[in-house]
């Protein structure tokens, strides 16, 4: 890296370390594979990262308050199963989707209440949530997926507006809204403050418990929204879907430069983190990398990415 002149690009890269990582990975993938840098594939990647990005946007807020949410994968399953049951019963996609998102909010409120007011560590609360929501999803469906090849809900996953897939549009709206909320509102300031120094926040009159409660409710609703997109993509709701989504979301947020210790992080960074993971998966598939090798490569690259991110940031400082 020392060979590079201090051009505008390298300054930009060092200020936004994760952008630099994304740039390097994109470059490597384009060189390794001719079908990577094509419009259909980039649209494809954007659509594939949308679900993880929507979940991770909520996760970013939670992690900035120095919390964590391990229940997102199970909640994707629960919210989509509830929504599909309502759609099957009433024939109304809208009613199903609204109910699904409300279920997400309710589960988030359950998580948030235990974290904010009972003072139980978020890791434990949401670990309990992980098994509880999965269990409820299995109970209400009897363990079998619900398939439905008709209905408006499918446009959430399969539709397109002006050539842009609906999941991508939803992702863009979520990212812009959450960025605005985090950087331009008093609530956003409070979120940073609670994660940075809880005691100081309390003393300066911020209702710490309320802020924590709110980020979990929001996270739950966004997770459910992602569940609705997945349900549309697959034309089905499955009680056993979403396993491991929490790990992808956490990795995404960390790759985006958000600190697990709280108080620091951005939504843009999370978007970049989601694309890093999405491009890795996409590139591995395009190059037909062996499945066993992929597991190792993905882990190594994520570690290197975080190292590079730190290096670029330190250079800036």
């Amino acid at each position, binding site marked *: 890296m020392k060979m590079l002149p201090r051009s505008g690009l390298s300054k930009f890269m060092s200020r936004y370390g994760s952008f630099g990582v994304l740039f390097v990975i994109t470059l490597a993938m384009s060189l390794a*594979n001719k*079908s990577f840098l094509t419009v*259909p*594939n980039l649209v*494809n990647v954007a*659509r*594939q990262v949308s679900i993880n990005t929507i979940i991770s946007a909520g996760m970013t807020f939670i992690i900035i308050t120095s919390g964590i949410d391990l229940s997102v994968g199970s909640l994707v399953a629960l919210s989509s199963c509830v929504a599909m049951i309502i759609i099957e019963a009433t024939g109304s996609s809208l009613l199903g989707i609204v109910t699904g998102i409300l279920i997400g909010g309710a589960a988030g409120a359950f998580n948030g209440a235990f974290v904010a007011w009972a003072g139980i560590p978020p890791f434990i609360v949401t670990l309990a949530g992980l098994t509880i929501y999965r269990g409820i999803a299995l109970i209400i469906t009897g*363990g*079998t*997926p619900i*398939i439905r090849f008709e209905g408006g809900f499918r446009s959430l*996953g*399969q539709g397109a507006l002006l050539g842009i897939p609906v999941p991508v549009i939803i992702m863009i709206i979520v990212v812009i809204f959450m960025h605005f909320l985090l950087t331009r509102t008093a609530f956003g300031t409070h979120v940073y403050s609670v994660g940075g120094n809880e005691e100081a926040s309390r003393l300066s009159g911020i209702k710490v418990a309320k802020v924590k409660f709110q980020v979990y409710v929001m996270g739950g609703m966004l997770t459910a929204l992602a569940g609705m997109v*997945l349900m549309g*993509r*697959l*034309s*089905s709701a*499955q009680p056993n*879907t*979403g*396993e491991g989504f929490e790990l992808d979301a956490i990795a995404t947020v960390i790759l985006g430069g958000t600190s697990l210790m709280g108080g620091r992080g951005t939504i843009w960074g999370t978007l970049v983190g989601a694309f890093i993971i999405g491009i890795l*998966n*996409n590139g*591995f*598939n*395009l190059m*037909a990398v062996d*499945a*066993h090798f*992929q*597991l190792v490569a993905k882990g190594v690259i994520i570690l290197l990415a975080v190292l590079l991110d730190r290096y670029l940031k330190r250079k800036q400082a």
Partner: protein
Amino acid sequence: MKGKKLLLIAAALLLTTSTLFAAPPLIAFSVSTTSNPFYATMAQGVKDEAKVLGFDVIVLDAQNKIEKQVADVEDALTKNIKVLLINGVDDGAIPLALKALAKGIPVMALQRNLNQGNMTAFIGTNNVVLGEQLIHWYASTLGGRVSKVLILTGTPGAASSEDRIKGINATLPKYPNIQVLASQTGYYDRAKSLPVAENMLLRFPEAEAILCLNDEMAMGALAAASSMNKKVKITGMDANPDALKAVAEGKLYMTIALPPYDIGRIGVQFAKDILDGKQVQAMKIMDVSFVTEQNVGQFRK
């Protein structure tokens, strides 16, 4: 009070002796879990065939817990059973089977092979053979024509997936006309295989078929193909209800149905043969059925 107790003992004695001498021979089937329809169907096959062949049968549901299976089988061994049919929860069932054998009770391992060679017989399907049969079948639909295919494999390291891959790889050299463009994992999961299938179809638009090592991934690949408006033949395995529905609707090209009911039935038939002093096949690998639009009717209930 004392008289009543004595009466009870007498009744119990009478009951045991009548079981010993008059009642039909007793066999036990210890099954991993009947909450999985596959094994529930297998247990039904055992019960139905036992009735036909004149056995009394006790079915013990281990609820997928090896410690419950241990207790179940130990109880059964005190009940003078003639044959033990066992579908092990995991390899923890091996010592159980050996215990029964040591008592002179023949053991039929159903679907889960418990340490081949030690058991009286194994009856079930075999994942290596399943992989072989998939390729033989696909080749038979081609008639020698060249076909480029993609493969979606299961969770890396899962024995079923690795064995199926082993069977596929061993058979492919016999059919040079089948060209595998890429093989990627979909983790046996519908949501996870959707983007993988999309990426592969984008990279290899010339693919004629996607062979998936279970139905969940086949359904994910189906969603990928439809989102990309691609016409591609997709095959699965397991014959899940929604996969069968997709086959009936002409969306899924093929799925493979395993025969749990027949595995149960043959287990009992073998038990009868053994008790009659006949030899049985030590390793009975069951045939599977290839379900397509033509014959899907007989597999849907």
